[in-house]
């Protein structure tokens, strides 16, 4: 077994980067991250293969989704750890839907022991959206609460109290690079910005956005958050659209995502053989148009991981 960092000590310097992702941001490089989704079942070879083949040498870190859209599947921590073993830096996505504060904190400690350093705190889709609609949703903490929990663990205690009412002291504490999410093109963006402020106050050190297809709206959002003193690095979210139908679906069903007509038209006009190339070009163009507004791009290729190298090329990175 190649478990890493079991006995690693917490860095003394609070600004010392704990991960490659954090180091790249600090160095001022434009960062690209990717994403894989664990399968429903134990056949994990494909997702690990795609990460090794298409992401390992092209992106800085790879998000591993956590029971995404409340559809039951293999866990994010196991796959994140397997990426560590393969020399790929994971971003461990963690939702608060399925675990209470005991399990969340315990899993955070476990993740650190398994060599995981980047954690993306998410609330998670409601169970009603997934394939186990009768499950009991937990949401003991929300994304803000999870960020605070991480900060608390980093400071050497947990959220509980001992018999005398004092904070419990940890035997060894973790140190994460803590991320959060935001929807920059929400129909009403103010509540999103306020929530982002809360997340940063709770300890978020970088932001990964929901899919963005409108550079002008994104620019406005970035100007606004910087004006309010939110200065953490932002990775703009790019979801690769495979068909015009997928774009239309996102417009009607995915909150805070608006796919403009020029993109839908390009995908509609493309012949079946050209569609993948057009789809790559669209992602490349979006990154090109937005790369000066932010610190990186988060590519969500939804199973088309083989397109990542070409998207990066199309983006001129």
């Amino acid at each position, binding site marked *: 077994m190649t478990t890493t960092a079991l006995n690693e000590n917490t860095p003394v310097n609070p600004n010392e980067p704990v991960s490659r992702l954090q180091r790249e941001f600090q160095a001022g490089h434009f960062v690209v991250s990717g994403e894989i989704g664990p399968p429903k079942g134990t056949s994990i070879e494909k997702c690990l293969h795609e990460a090794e083949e298409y992401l390992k040498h092209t992106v800085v870190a790879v998000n591993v989704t956590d029971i995404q859209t409340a559809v039951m599947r293999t866990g994010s921590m196991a796959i994140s750890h397997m990426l560590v073993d393969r020399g790929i830096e994971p971003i461990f996505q963690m939702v608060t839907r399925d675990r209470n504060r005991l399990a969340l904190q315990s899993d955070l400690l476990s993740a650190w022991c398994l060599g995981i350093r980047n954690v993306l705190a998410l609330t998670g889709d409601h169970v009603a959206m997934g394939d186990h609609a009768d499950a009991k949703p937990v949401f003991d903490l929300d994304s803000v609460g999870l960020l605070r929990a991480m900060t608390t663990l980093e400071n050497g205690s947990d959220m509980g109290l001992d018999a005398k009412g004092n904070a419990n002291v940890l035997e060894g504490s973790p140190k994460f690079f803590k991320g959060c999410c935001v929807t920059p093109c929400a129909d009403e963006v103010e*509540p999103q910005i306020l929530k982002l402020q809360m997340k940063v106050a709770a300890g978020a050190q970088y932001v990964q956005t*929901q899919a963005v297809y409108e550079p002008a709206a994104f620019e406005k959002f970035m100007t606004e958050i910087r004006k309010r003193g939110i200065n953490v690095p932002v990775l703009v979210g790019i979801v690769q659209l495979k068909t015009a139908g997928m774009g239309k679906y996102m417009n009607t069903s995915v909150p805070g995502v608006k796919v403009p007509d020029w993109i839908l038209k390009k995908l509609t006009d493309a012949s079946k053989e050209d569609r993948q190339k057009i789809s790559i070009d669209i992602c490349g163009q979006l990154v090109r148009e937005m790369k000066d507004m932010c610190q990186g791009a988060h590519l969500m290729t939804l199973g088309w991981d083989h397109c990542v190298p070409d998207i990066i090329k199309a983006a001129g990175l």
Partner: protein
Amino acid sequence: MIVADRKPMEEILAMLAPYKRVLVLACGGCVTVCVSGGEKQADLLASQLKLAAAAAGRADVQFDVDCITRQCDREFAAMLKKPLDQYDAVLSIACGVGVGFMSELAPQATVLPGLNTTSYDASTAKGVWQEYCGGCGDCLLAETGGICPIVRCSKGLTNGTCGGTKTGKCEVSKDMDCGWYLIFKKLQAAGKLELYTKVRPAKKWSKDRNGKGARRLTHKELMETEEFSK
């Protein structure tokens, strides 16, 4: 008020299938107001059950109807026309409190629920009841413009809207308001948005029913009454 909704007829028929003498017991409290478990509904339900039993070849099943002011209060039990244990089964169409309390008061009786109890609601329009309170035992309404995030937000979040909000509606259903959007609008209108951005400490779920088991309220000055009821 407590709101409850009648169980599907098939479920009630299946529950009552083994019994010959059945009492349909209405309650004059909340369930009368939300038109689910009052005397009128009991009369109607008893006639429906009689017809259904006859259609199933069980015309001999007897369905009586009774109603007391509140099934959740010992003093009104004296209003019962007949002791509950003289029936094979009592179908209570009170909320779950009534079902449980009637069952406790009549140890020999079989008391069955005719309703599914759902929530603490306000009557927001004629024929409409909307959940307003989660009964969590640790009220947050002072900070949320009087809008309960525990029940008006599908996820019961305590720190602002999630990413699922769309045109003021919740990700769970486009027919349901996003509770945190309502809170945002209310605090914005009241000039109190600083309450929205206040990072709240993790909620004390120990005060909720899941925290330390069944909760109990006692008023010391009224303990005599409490003693009488136990």
